């Protein structure tokens, strides 16, 4: 299943830090390229995790082989948020101010990214707002970044 969501293709040359993709997260990043937000899901009890780990609910197979990456609904709520006014990295000079949110997905795991499209009004008062995933493709760079956008209740 492919999640719905806006696709933003960023034409500029990438001048920010690149994603840190390792053996534990490579499949997750491949999922983003297919416009799927994957969660590390237990095949025995259905518990969803992000990032990758052993299932906490029972004994695991070696190397956590009883779990696999499964698409999430892509919906959640803002759990915490802030507004960056300060470009710590030169690549973000044109982006500030930006809202950076910690999103609690409906499946449970929490993941962070910026809010695109309609902007929140306040980093505290808008905690709890409903959001859904959006995918920002960077085909020239070989990765897709997850973003979030506000949606109606």
């Amino acid at each position, binding site marked *: 299943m492919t999640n719905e969501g806006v696709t933003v293709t960023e034409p500029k040359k990438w001048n*920010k*830090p*690149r*994603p*840190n993709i*390792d053996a*534990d*997260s490579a499949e997750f990043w491949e999922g983003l390229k297919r416009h799927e937000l994957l969660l590390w899901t237990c095949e025995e009890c259905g518990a969803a995790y*992000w*990032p990758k780990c052993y299932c*906490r609910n029972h004994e695991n197979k070696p190397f956590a082989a009883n779990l696999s990456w499964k698409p999430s609904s892509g919906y959640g709520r803002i*759990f*915490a*948020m*802030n*507004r*960056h*006014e*300060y*470009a*710590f*990295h*030169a690549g*973000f*000079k044109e*982006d500030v101010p*930006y809202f*950076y949110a*910690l999103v*609690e997905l409906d499946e449970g*795991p*929490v*993941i*962070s*990214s*910026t809010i695109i499209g309609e902007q929140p009004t306040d*980093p*505290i*008062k808008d*905690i*709890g707002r409903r959001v859904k995933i959006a995918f920002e493709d960077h085909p020239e760079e070989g*990765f897709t*970044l*997850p*973003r979030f956008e506000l949606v109606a209740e």
Partner: protein
Amino acid sequence: MSTRNRIAVVGLAEVHPPQGMSQRMMASEATRLAVEDAGLKISDIDGAIDLRRTGGGGDRASYSDTFTRFLGMQAQFYFTIGRGGALAGLATAAATGFLDRGLANYVVCVGAVDDWSKAEQTKKQGHRGMQHAEKEGYWGKPLGDLRAASHHSWMAARHMAQYGTTSEQLGAISVAQRTWACLNPDAKMYGRPITIEDHQNSPWVVEPYHRLDCSLISDGAIAFILTTEERAKDLKQQPIWVSGQGFGEIAASYWWEKKNLTHMAVAPAKEKAFAQAGITLNDIDVAQLYDCFTGEVLLQLEDYGWAEKGQGGKYVESGATAPGGHGIPVNTGGGLLSNWHLGDLVGYAEAVQQLRGTAGDRQVKDAKVALTTGHGGELVSPSMCSIHTSTILTVD
């Protein structure tokens, strides 16, 4: 505890040379002075622990030379330890093992940072804040989670959303610590008092954090010497006893419960440290609480029990932690916000000074029991999978 060796802090030194000096040079000099402070010789020191901020952002594991070689020290062991700002507490626990088993007589623990110098260098590349070192597996960098303030500010944001804490209340922490720093001639911000209005008018770095909610970026080194009871009794300084230690991990439960933005892993650390020292909260005369940002102080005041969970804002707003306040004196040298930032070494050193009675104008009267804490770890959404270290230092 009675069957074990008691461990004491018997030497202490702190240096803040001009920018551009190497970390190993600063570590060496702080060590030389701490040995002198103890009334010992370099040749007496047979163990060395180098406090490095591994964990968190950046590769700061070690450098390409040991300060022991640099200083001509004949230590029988040298290793690095630390997790983010959790340094002195972990080093004390490690050194205790060596001393208790008779593997060393005198252990030096030293931490040096050159963040200020490095930040000046990266500023030339167009960046701001601490130096940029990318950590393997770190999630948020390409997205905009760039620095400690990017995710630590979520703690304040969540506390505000959940309990109604205000920016002015966080400002009260900043002002209280600056007031302490203005009593400390060795503090970076000595002679520069601030008001709540100054806090509110300081620019947003990452809202809800103003500039004055954020700790300093420093150069410098702090060293301390640990030894056993029978050796401590014959030395130049009054021994300051390590009477209790405890540790807690966010990954044990709070991370899974999504409580790690409003709590630090204080509960298990406090329980063990207080039990070992045989104290309760009311016995603590002075508290050095890890304060990379104002929010961490607020959380710890609640987690240790000086305020109820969610009520820390009202507590600090009343001036409880400031000089002359009715509550617990907190970060009496100015802390990481207004003194210097060398991780938990700053609070540890200040606790020793207070217990020695050498804290000058900021001396807390009859301080006999000090709490000093450390914090540091990794960023795993929902944020901050960190350790909390709790160390009780005492005069008796």
